């Protein structure tokens, strides 16, 4: 039975719950917008990283390089699309 619950994954799970609780603090604790956004940004990206590495085994095969390139490129495009659009349609006036 024990072998079915490897420490790495159990730790990963508790860590992700912890990150969620920290993120929830922005709702329950009074703080400024900047601090809240910083917390959200950090917890979200760390959380994504935990999923990627601990649960999705992104780095385990020989195609590690291709997989990480794809993910980084995707994140790059995502950030460009989101912030570029915000800059163009909202911020840049």
């Amino acid at each position, binding site marked *: 039975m024990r072998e079915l619950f490897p420490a790495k994954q159990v730790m990963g799970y508790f860590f992700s719950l912890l990150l969620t609780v920290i993120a929830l603090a922005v709702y329950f604790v009074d703080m400024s*917008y*900047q601090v809240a*956004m910083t917390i959200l940004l950090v917890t979200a990206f760390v959380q994504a990283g935990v999923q990627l590495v601990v649960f999705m085994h992104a780095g385990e095969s020989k195609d590690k390089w291709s997989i990480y390139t794809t993910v980084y490129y995707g994140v790059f495009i995502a950030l460009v699309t989101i912030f570029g659009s915000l800059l163009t*349609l*909202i*911020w*840049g*006036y």
Partner: protein
Amino acid sequence: MTKKLILFSSIFAFLIFLTGCQSLTVLDPKGPQAETTADVIMTSIWTMLIIVIVVFILLIVMLVKYRARNQADDYEPPYIKGNKWVEIICVGIPIIIVIFLSVITVKSTYEVEGKPKGYENDEPLVIYAASSNWKWHFSYPEENIETVNYVFIPTDRPIEFKLYAYGPIASFWVPQLAGQKYAMANMVNTLNLAATEPGEYMGRNASFTGEGFAEQTFNVTALPPADYQTWIEEIQATAEPLTEDKFNQLLEPGRLGQETYTGTHLEFSPPPTTHHGAKESDGTENTEQEMNDSMEDSMEN
């Protein structure tokens, strides 16, 4: 031989093009904004011409000199991997050209977006220009008159066109006075221009809006300030008042001639107050606003 043909015909075409430049609408500016864009266009044409000529000459030399027919039968082309210096030149020169053009672009873009050069301290005349299918409505809030499909402006005074649309996105364009700007239904845009010479200028919508798009044009007449004043007074004395019903009739899709009214539609059909459809900032947008401000600050510094 064959390449030469292309070369000569394109150079020939280009010469025709250059000689014709002076008479082309965009390159015949009658105000500071259009003058800036015309200068930028000509500078870029000359710069680009250098590149084109270099490429063409290189191409012709290569094609003529290394043609199989002009070489010995037993000639075996060598294996050439590439040369660091050649590549540095191939990258370096385009970078220099791009930097040069970037500087011009940034400078001129700020220039044409701002108040017209030479009129920075004058009080601008505000005219609302609204597009509807397939007409242009011009409202003079100060003078309290409205015209359709034509607009009179005084020379030597900055004009601020407030652009918006009833319906599809249109693009307000008076090539001899300034470049284009969009007129949209959920936001008001500002276009700055000034006319230095009296005259009649072609204006049109440049952005496709459907069936009547080709005819969605208007005339801009620039008059010396005194004549302009006379015109205003004449309209105020003679034109019919614009009622809401009448305005709604004008908005019906279709074509109209030039029309004139007293009063403006701004009272009963005000221009949009949103920013691309979004309500103007509430509390949470502060940071974005600040970010925007700080970015602008850093640009200015």
